[in-house]
Structures are given as structure tokens and as C-alpha cells.
């Protein structure tokens, strides 16, 4: 567990707080730290999960400290099964004992709680609606695994569908630096984790997403310059090896 910039566990601060001390400043300082550090944040996720990555990026944008717990796809923890009994999936954010599931619901939660910095959604209602619409579009359309789970004509169709979806997204991006305009926001966070799958898609599909969708890849590379993104996204080749392993496990190819 990381405790912000200090490493004093809250219990020791509490002891200092309750012990009579003539220096009121010291007591007040310990009280403030105890309150600040009593925010317990745990993220259950899996390193290749684009949905988990959304939450990691959002927390990093807000510069919020948290404990990360890695889940095993083939051996889910009893904690995960308890906090997300409906879907039994990552990510789950546990904030002071309360579990929040569904990546986009978690990202909006993070934006609402830490609302004093780096807004992830615009304040204008129409632009907020646009952001939610496109984040929903990414959820419905961009997460397909068909390209690496199919062969022959099925795979060709999956590739065509995916490129079509990416071109729609390129159309929406236009010449803006981010989907959020000048500000990196909800739609960028919803989509950029899938960039870690592009190498895998290229290898399996025997094509180049960058050649087909240069504007989208340029946007992804721009996002990768942000600390929240490059520190969160896994290595693309590592993702490819993982997909090979999962395919083998499921008896695909």
C-alpha cells in the first residue's frame, strides 16, 4: 500500500493525535494527515484489460494514490467474486470499502469524487452528452476480439468491420488533438487502452491499422505522450503473447 508522499500508517498518526501534546500545530498536522490518508482505494484489475486500464488512466490523471491488485483470469480471487457477484469481472474499484463496477461508471465516479482537478468530462451539458455517446460507441463497437478469434472470410469481415468503426471514430476526432478537444477526457480514456491491442490486431489480421487509420494512430501516439497513458498501457508485444496464450487455452487456432 502506498500512502501518498509519507509512509506513516494511519494508526501511528492516530496515536500521536490522541496523546496529549503541548504543540497544537503538531496535533493538527497529524489530524490532517490521518484524514487525508484514510481514503482507502483498491483497484482489482488484470494488466491486459482495456477496461481496467481506463480506470488506471483516470486515477493517474487525477493523481490519486491507490493499491493495485492483479487478478488471474484463470483463477479469480474470492474478493473479486464477492465485490462483483453479478459479472465476476474486472475492473472493480473499492473506495473505503464500497465497490464500484463497470469501467465507465467507475471513471465517471472518479471524476465526480475528485472534482477539484483535471476534469474528465466537459461542463457543458451538450458536450457531456457527446462524450457519453462516443464512450458508449467505443464500448459497443471497439472491443471486438473477432479478428484474433476467427479465420478466413469471418476474419476478413471482422477486419472490415473494425476498420469501418475506427474510420467513424476518425471522423469524430477530425483535426482535434483529443476527442475531448483540447482536453484529454472520457472518450480518449475509453478508447486509448485498445491501442495496446493494435500490434496484436496487425499480426493476426496481417494488415496495418496505422496504414488504414493514420489519424487514429496519430491520436493514440499523442495520448501516449501523457504520463497517465504511457505509465499505464502494457507493452504491445506482451499483449500479443498473452492473446496467443489465451487462444491456446480456449483451443482457438
Amino acid at each position: 500500500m502506498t500512502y501518498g508522499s509519507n509512509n506513516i500508517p494511519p494508526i501511528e498518526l492516530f496515536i500521536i493525535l490522541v496523546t496529549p501534546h503541548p504543540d497544537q500545530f503538531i496535533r493538527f498536522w497529524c489530524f490532517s494527515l490521518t484524514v487525508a490518508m484514510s481514503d482507502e482505494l483498491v483497484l482489482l484489475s488484470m494488466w491486459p484489460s482495456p477496461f481496467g486500464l481506463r480506470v488506471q488512466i483516470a486515477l493517474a490523471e487525477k493523481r490519486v494514490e491507490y493499491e493495485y491488485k492483479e487478478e488471474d483470469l484463470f483463477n479469480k480471487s474470492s474478493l473479486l467474486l464477492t465485490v462483483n457477484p453479478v459479472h465476476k469481472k474486472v475492473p472493480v474499484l473499492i473506495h473505503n470499502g464500497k465497490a464500484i463496477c463497470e469501467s465507465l461508471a467507475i471513471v465517471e465516479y472518479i471524476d465526480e469524487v475528485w472534482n477539484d482537478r483535471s476534469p474528465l468530462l466537459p461542463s457543458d451539458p451538450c458536450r457531456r452528452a457527446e462524450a457519453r455517446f462516443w464512450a458508449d460507441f467505443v464500448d459497443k463497437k471497439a472491443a471486438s476480439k473477432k479478428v484474433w478469434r476467427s479465420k478466413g472470410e469471418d476474419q476478413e469481415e471482422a477486419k472490415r468491420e473494425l476498420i469501418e468503426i475506427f474510420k467513424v471514430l476518425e471522423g469524430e476526432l477530425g483535426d482535434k488533438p483529443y476527442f475531448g478537444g483540447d482536453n484529454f477526457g472520457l472518450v480518449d480514456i475509453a478508447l486509448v487502452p485498445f491501442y495496446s491491442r493494435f500490434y496484436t490486431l496487425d499480426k493476426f489480421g496481417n494488415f496495418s491499422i496505422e496504414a488504414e487509420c493514420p489519424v487514429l494512430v496519430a491520436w493514440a501516439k499523442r495520448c501516449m505522450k501523457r504520463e497517465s497513458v504511457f505509465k499505464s498501457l502494457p507493452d504491445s508485444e506482451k499483449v500479443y503473447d498473452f492473446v496467443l496464450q489465451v487462444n491456446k487455452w480456449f483451443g482457438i487456432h
Partner: protein
Amino acid sequence: MAGTTTSDVRLIGAWPSPFVMRARIALNIKSVYYEFLQEQLGSKSDLLLKSNPVHKKIPVLIHGDRPICESLVIVQYIDDVWASGPSILPSDPYDCAIARFWAAYIDEKWFPSLSGIARAQGEEAKKAAIEQVVEGLVLLEDAFVKCGKGRAFFGGDTIGYLDIALGCYLGWIRVTEKMNNMKLLDEAKTPNLVTWADKFCGDGSVKDVMPETDKLAEFAKVLMAKFRAPPPN
């Protein structure tokens, strides 16, 4: 209605659609006047295709000249814009996240299982499809107890986001019950949802937009006939 002025708020939709109903309920909660532009079954107007080029689906809310698409996005937009009316989303971020979670569950998992009953071929498949829907409703019963905290609705004392997300399907739930001669919402397994359903349907913002079960059942027959008809030569 007399007069030729374009309404500031227009809603493209159709009376049987639960997704359109969500927008209508939200507008009613906020007492917003809107012009309802009904699409015809089997064809899509130029306005719809222009306003929602990505999905080409209803509902679309047009506020001034800005189109807003996707029913739950529209509900949140209505809540954001007409902030002085009763709140639709919970103010507490955790309660809000829970409402969003269950709304996503309803649309992504539960509603497909409801449509699955009509698609099921044979008694065994139908029985399995019905069981799946009831299992989902039992989960939602539990969610109701936790979210509502003893009050009338998921949102508390007044209709909220999650009430709208689930309640819009009540017409279709009743049609499914009628056509299959069984109960999906029943006193034994989902007593709280049974009470909630009556209160929801009787609420001022809902009762004029919730279609009558018989009218919806007739429409369902027309829809099924249309999709089962052989293609024209």
C-alpha cells in the same frame, strides 16, 4: 396543435419503444414541453438519418438544433440541462455509480434475455429463457432493496435514473406475461418490484406515455408477422 413555430425541444421516436419512453418520462419529470415526432414502422425519416447518422435509431432528442442520441445519454442530458426540476440522477457519486452499473446490466444482459423469450423455439427453450429473465429480476429486486432503502422507488421518494432504465420495459414485460400465460414479476420472488411496478406506472410522469398492454400486444403481433414474413420476390 395550431401554429407553425418549431418547438425548441423535439423528440424523434415511436410510442411502443421503451428507449423512447425513457426520454419522454425524463422530459415529463422536468415539465418540459416537447414536440413528439413519430417514426413509422419499417421506414426511417430523413430527419432521423441526419440526426443520428451513426446508429440511425430512435430516440433522438433535438434541443434547438443539437441532436442527442442514446436513451440513457438523453436522460442524463435532460437532468443536466433542466437542473431546476426534480433530480433524476442521485446526487451522491456512489449512489450514481450504482445506478449506472444497474442500468448497464439491464441494457446489456437483462433486456437481451427478455427478447430471448420471443425468439426461443420450443417449450424447453422458452422455459429456459423465462428462467433467465426471472433470475435477472431477482437480482434487480435485491438492488431495489439496497438502492431504494425502504422508499417507493430505486431513486428514493421520486422516480430516478434506475427507475426509468428498468420501468420503461414494464409494458413489454406485461405483453410477454400475457402472450406466454405466466408471470415474470411475481409476489413470491420479486414482491418489492411488483409494488414498485404499480407505483411507477401510476406516476404522473409515466402514465400517459406507458402504452396499454393490449395495444402493445397487438403491435407485437404486427412486428412478429413482419419479421417472419417471407422476403418479397
